[in-house]
């Protein structure tokens, strides 16, 4: 029954999406408002149908309907309800269902948002989104069969992969990433619509600014949640391994970050039109590329799903997207000439340009490193793998340069900057950076990369804070009031600027955390008899014994390590090994003693490797990770900055006091006025 409902809903959704695409394009071309309206309202039925398919699958999972192959392979009777819900996206086909749901949700949101004010590009953009939707529906109807049944329903299912039923973060990481990836469809669709219609001003950028921002915030959150999951679950003591699938999630983030910055140059100066369109095509292309690599069985990775026949379809779609996107940009290149030139390199737009060159270089570096094994095999026939050292060596210098530009960019005015002006405003930041470096050198730190990174971080951090303070002071001079109120006023008057500054501050924290933890981390593998102890990272760790904890879906062996400092027990680590019936290799759960200000934010991390009979001895891997927790603090600050920039501006009544610190280009209201005009 579930199979019939689900399959039927998906096929119907495919037909509806195809209709939506045709109606949008025909309606747009023949300027038939009724047809466009029909295409617009079709978004409701599309979303409803995809929702039905998702709910059907969810109900089947919850009801243990093992006649469905997907349920039998990804859930079991003993799987806790929470992880049963997650089983919806813990394998290839189910996650494609969720993907379709998010995509149709975005389509519906666009249809609702533009129900009254309709820019000329709207029907074309709607059509593009329907085409994308139809492609992903094709994947779940023709190429794969999420509702495929088994001739004989097994007594019990296999359960989700043990790794995926081990941590609640699985609930947040994939959906967040999906919201980010798929959200990039909206600016892509409007960019393509601009190319179709030849309306090549910055209108498409203004219309989609907050959509892009939302997707970017979700993508950022998804990436940081993913690294937190890796740190808390995988037990190898790290958070980022330059795994191919980590890289391909990073690639759209890099490209969209470049896009978020470069669009400001087009909005203000009418430059970089070709570049912005190329970036959004690249961003969207990279999301397709990412799903292609994870599902198309190209590269081997922890994330890659089981083999499926969707590879060639992804490749064809990717080819269509890139050819249509770049082909149209090339065809329109004459109309896309810039309206002005960069007057001085030392100016806001000059720094944005530098930022974009560096981000593009970084994207390219990561992309090359990711596909290099394939390239090498194609050319020489030998298999190689590209590991962390390549990425660390190539990405770190670019990141530091980016950090530097991030510090000076917001301080520079548009068009007319000068070195002297810059130096004047950089007084405090330069002092902060110099003092940090001097302090580190004097105290005997000889990790030069760390010295450079920390010095630069201090420089950028202070520059950003000084810039924020300047805005608050200006607000206070103009309107009076307390500091807190002025800060609130300044931020709400120019959310985009302050959101950006907050995000920059977050990135500074992230860079500090990465440098700190990677420079000063240490690890040790040791086998301890019960009652024995070892000294590690300034602590004494004592193995006091192991216990067995049977749970319905697994058996958990917990070992206890006492953390002793100066003869006093200051904490305990309880890493465990989990045995699942469907897998003979146990899945470890590491235990982390989170750093506090009292121990210099020092994370102690232990994972249990093996446990001898009856717990007489145990082998542990211990990691000392100073400062690593700041990575997620920084991530949260970046997301907060994004949310500030994203927050809608309240409509002010006409004739209200003009802003002191706001620029017209940052007013979404004005965008709408343009759209309706």
């Amino acid at each position, binding site marked *: 029954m579930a199979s019939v409902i689900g399959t039927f809903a998906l096929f119907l959704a495919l037909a509806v999406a195809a209709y939506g695409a045709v109606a949008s394009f025909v309606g747009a071309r023949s300027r038939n408002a009724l047809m466009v309206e029909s295409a617009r309202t079709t978004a409701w039925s599309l979303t409803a149908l995809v929702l039905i398919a998702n709910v059907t699958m969810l109900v089947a999972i919850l009801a243990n309907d093992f006649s469905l192959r997907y349920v039998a392979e990804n859930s079991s009777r003993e799987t806790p309800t929470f992880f049963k819900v997650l089983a919806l996206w813990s394998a290839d086909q189910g996650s494609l269902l969720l993907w379709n749901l998010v995509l149709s949700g975005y389509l519906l949101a666009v249809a609702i948002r533009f129900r009254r004010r309709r820019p000329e590009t709207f029907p074309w953009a709607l059509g593009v989104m329907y085409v994308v939707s139809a492609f992903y529906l094709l994947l779940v109807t023709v190429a794969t069969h999420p509702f495929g049944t*088994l001739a004989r329903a*097994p*007594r019990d299912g296999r359960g989700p992969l043990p790794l995926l039923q081990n941590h609640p973060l699985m609930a947040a990481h994939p959906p967040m990433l999906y919201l980010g990836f798929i959200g990039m469809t909206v600016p892509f669709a409007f960019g393509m619509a601009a190319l179709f219609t030849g309306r090549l*001003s910055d209108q498409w950028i203004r219309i989609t600014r907050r959509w892009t921002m939302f997707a970017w915030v979700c993508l950022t959150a998804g990436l940081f949640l993913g690294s937190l999951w890796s740190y808390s679950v995988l037990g190898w003591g790290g958070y980022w391994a330059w795994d191919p699938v980590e890289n391909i999630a990073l690639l759209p983030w890099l490209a969209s970050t470049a896009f978020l910055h470069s669009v400001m140059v087009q909005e203000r100066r009418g430059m970089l039109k070709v570049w912005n369109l190329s970036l959004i095509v690249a961003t969207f292309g990279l999301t397709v590329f990412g799903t292609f690599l994870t599902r198309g069985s190209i590269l081997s990775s922890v994330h890659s799903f089981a083999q499926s026949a969707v590879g*060639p379809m992804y*490749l064809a779609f990717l080819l269509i997207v890139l*050819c249509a996107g770049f082909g149209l940009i090339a065809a329109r290149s004459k109309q896309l000439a810039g309206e002005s030139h960069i007057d001085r390199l030392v100016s806001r737009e000059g720094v944005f340009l530098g930022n974009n060159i560096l981000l593009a270089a970084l994207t390219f570096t990561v992309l090359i490193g990711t596909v290099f094994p394939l390239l090498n095999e194609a050319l020489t026939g030998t298999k190689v793998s590209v590991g962390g050292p390549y990425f660390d060596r190539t990405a770190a210098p670019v990141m530091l340069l980016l950090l530097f530009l991030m510090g000076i960019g917001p301080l520079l*005015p548009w*068009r007319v900057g000068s070195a002297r002006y810059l130096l004047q405003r950089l007084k405090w930041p330069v002092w902060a950076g110099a003092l940090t470096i001097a302090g580190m050198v004097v105290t005997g730190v000889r990790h030069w990369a760390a010295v450079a990174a920390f010095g630069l971080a201090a420089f950028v951090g202070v520059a950003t804070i000084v810039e924020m303070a300047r805005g608050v002071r200006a607000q206070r001079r103009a309107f009076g009031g307390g500091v807190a109120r002025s800060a609130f006023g300044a931020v709400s008057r120019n959310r985009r600027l302050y959101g950006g500054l907050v995000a920059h501050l977050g990135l500074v924290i992230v860079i500090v955390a990465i440098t700190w933890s990677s420079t000063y981390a240490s690890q040790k593998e040791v086998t301890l008899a019960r009652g024995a102890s070892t000294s590690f990272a300034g602590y004494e760790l004592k193995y006091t014994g192991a216990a067995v904890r049977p749970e319905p879906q697994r058996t958990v062996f917990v070992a206890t390590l006492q953390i002793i400092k100066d003869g006093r027990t200051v904490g305990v680590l309880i890493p465990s090994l989990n045995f699942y019936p469907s897998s003979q290799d146990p899945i470890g759960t590491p235990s982390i003693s989170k750093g506090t200000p009292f121990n210099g934010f020092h994370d102690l991390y232990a994972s249990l490797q093996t446990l001898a009979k009856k717990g007489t001895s145990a082998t542990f891997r211990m990691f000392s990770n100073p400062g690593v927790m700041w990575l997620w603090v920084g991530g949260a600050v970046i997301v907060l900055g994004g949310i500030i920039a994203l927050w809608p501006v309240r409509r002010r009544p006409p004739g209200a006091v003009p802003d002191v610190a706001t620029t017209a280009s940052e007013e979404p209201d004005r965008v709408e006025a343009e759209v309706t005009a």
Partner: protein
Amino acid sequence: MTDAQPEPRQESQPVPQRWTDRRWRVVVISLVPVLLLAALLGFGLGRNPRATPQAQLIGKPAPDFALKDMHTGKTVHLSDFRGHPVVLNFWASWCVDCSVEHPNLVGAWQRFGNEGTVFLSVLYQDTPAGAAGFCSKGVVCEWPDLYDPGGRTALNYGVTGVPETVFITPDGRIAAKQISVASYPLIERRIHQMAGERA
């Protein structure tokens, strides 16, 4: 901020397009990198990144084992069956494809079991209780079902997942290995091949 107010810009009107030679050239040149990338990915599609060199096993002597039959409790050695072709099937009760494959094995066992072909099953990453559950519902589980604690035998045969079926000739060499579901015609063909080699 020191920012100046920007001049509002006019929306550019669509310009009628003419596809001149030069324009085609720009389009084609811009698409070259795209096509190169596509060619590379197309190459990648043709390979299996998880392919393990299975060919190494073929023709080699089949590793012997001594495993307990879960039905009878007796220990079974592979070497006991020298002189007979052996169909060695790795399976698990949680494996969906294994239940799809099982009727094929039953059919082949009914057809060839009396003619000297030996059928053996080895449980892979599963518990005897799970196996008993699989066989409880009127499913034919007549041939020896071996328990492989620690998965050593599976490791020796390079098993990466279930179902996998290894065909062993009467003189104890690995004739072929099937990864994923073995269809009835495939099992039949392999058994005939092994019989042909003996003749």
